[in-house]
């Protein structure tokens, strides 16, 4: 990586930190997902209530097949392993689309992209710097959320199970395999959008197309329709990565000055 690219990445990250419009949603949404919701679940479990709608069906399925010491354990187990994983797809997608919208479409909207095009950095270098510069903070947000979630869950888990219940293999697959793939997907999507969208807002609206399927997945999870096991997760991640690879090829072609100014 050339030093100009590093400078560019550093600038992009600094811009995010300096803008509350970008920074706040990336702080608040994950905190709701990994701090407030799990705490609600852990406290609710004590009263035999998940506090989260749509878990009843899952509970029925698990109560029949798996044995737990008590209902609270059952609730916590289901919540942690079947409800929350999807949030770790939502968080990177959200972060990638906010950062991507700012980094790709925002530069175009604010007319700074053309200024970059006049520097000695080639369009390919610019592209890869922008992808890395978006990926790193987006994935950092995800990892950071994962750590907080891990702490919360383990504190609760200790209380209900008397042992550390996190992370499981499934969780590691999600965070190290699926999340990065999805982060990249979100970024590529934003690059593709950047050729079409004229403003940051427009890009955000378009990115709803990618967030919606994931929300559906979340709903599906909590009603017991989607019970993803390790193999499915690994396959899913591989499929997304393959999609990433091909879409990246298209995105690289689309990212030409001709289309951007």
């Amino acid at each position: 990586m050339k030093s100009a690219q590093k400078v560019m990445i550093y600038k992009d990250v600094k811009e995010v930190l300096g803008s509350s419009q970008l920074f706040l949603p990336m702080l608040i949404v994950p905190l709701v997902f990994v701090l407030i919701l799990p705490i609600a679940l852990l406290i609710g479990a004590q009263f035999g209530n998940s506090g989260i709608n749509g878990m009843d069906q899952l509970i029925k399925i698990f109560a029949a097949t798996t044995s737990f010491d008590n209902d609270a354990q059952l609730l916590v187990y289901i919540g942690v392993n079947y409800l929350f994983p999807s949030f770790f797809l939502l968080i990177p997608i959200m972060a990638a689309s906010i950062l991507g919208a700012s980094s790709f479409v925002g530069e175009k909207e604010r007319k700074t992209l053309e200024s970059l095009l006049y520097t000695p950095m080639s369009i390919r270098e610019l592209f890869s710097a922008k992808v890395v510069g978006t990926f790193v903070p987006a994935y950092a947000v995800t990892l950071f959320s994962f750590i907080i979630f891990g702490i919360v869950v383990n504190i609760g888990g200790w209380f209900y199970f008397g042992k550390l219940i996190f992370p499981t293999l499934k969780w590691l697959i999600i965070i190290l395999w699926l999340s990065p793939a999805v982060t990249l997907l979100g970024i590529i999507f934003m690059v593709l959008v950047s050729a079409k969208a004229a403003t940051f807002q427009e890009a955000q609206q378009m990115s709803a197309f990618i967030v919606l399927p994931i929300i559906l997945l979340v709903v599906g999870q909590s009603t017991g329709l989607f019970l993803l096991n390790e193999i499915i997760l690994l396959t899913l991640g591989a499929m997304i990565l393959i999609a990433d690879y091909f879409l990246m090829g298209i995105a690289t072609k689309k990212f030409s000055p001709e289309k951007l100014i």
Partner: protein
Amino acid sequence: MHAIEVCNLKKSYTQGENALDSISFHIPQGAIFGFLGPNGSGKTTTVRILNGILSPTQGSALVYGQKVTANSQEIHRLCGVMTETAASYENLTGWENLDFFGQMHGLSKTEIKNQSEQLLYSLDLYESKDKKVKAYSTGMKKRISLARALLHRPKILFLDEPTSGLDPESAQNVTQMVQKLAIEHGVTVFLCTHQLKYAEDICTLYGFIHKGNMLGFGTFQQLLQEKNSTIYLELRGDSIPPSFTPYQNANKIYKIPITGDTDASQILQGILKQGGQVYEAKQIHWGLEDLYFAYQRGVSHEISTKSNDL
């Protein structure tokens, strides 16, 4: 070797419509080239092609002998560009902007510091260097863009409307600075503007463009010669026979290109003989504005045949 060489350059954004229609010209090193034309005539398009960020539909362009389509990175090292469509980062301060772009150009920290300080001083921005660019006025934003374009000491400077939005004092300051760069450092300047007054002050070479066609190219003298005239007769009158008046300004003022005193007298006699009334007549030397309109109007439909007779 010419600083800029353009050969049969053509650009169409959409099928069948030419933003640039086979233009050719070359600019020697150290010239201040005034590229003048109305809105949408293709000035910015030319600047973008010459900097390799748009590719031409046809034809070729060389900057210091290098093909702009082949080695745009080298071109970007040679050229500094300031256009209205290339802005600074609003959330960074003026200083941070220069620092960022300096690093993007691969300049060292001390180089950036020295150059930035000097540019900020001469562009009267030093006091605002730690303010975010979004807090700058239009004119200050213009000037910080200019500082950015000059940061890496380019050999060719492209300025797209550098003085629009500037107060007369800053505009003059900028024009003088540009002139100094050309004279003292041999920087070639490619200046697109609507502000003929500033162009007239500093340009050594002109190009008049209209709808992607180069109507005239050369030094002021060459262009005058091409129009076969260095002076015109300005008349105020009524019922002037149309054969005498290719260009009419408002309020019954007419401008008639002439070659000298005899010509003037003959024209006046002619007008009077054909029943025209003359209240006032004066010989005036062509200014850039006159020349510009002579060329630009030369293309517009009704008058085009007449102007060819001149």
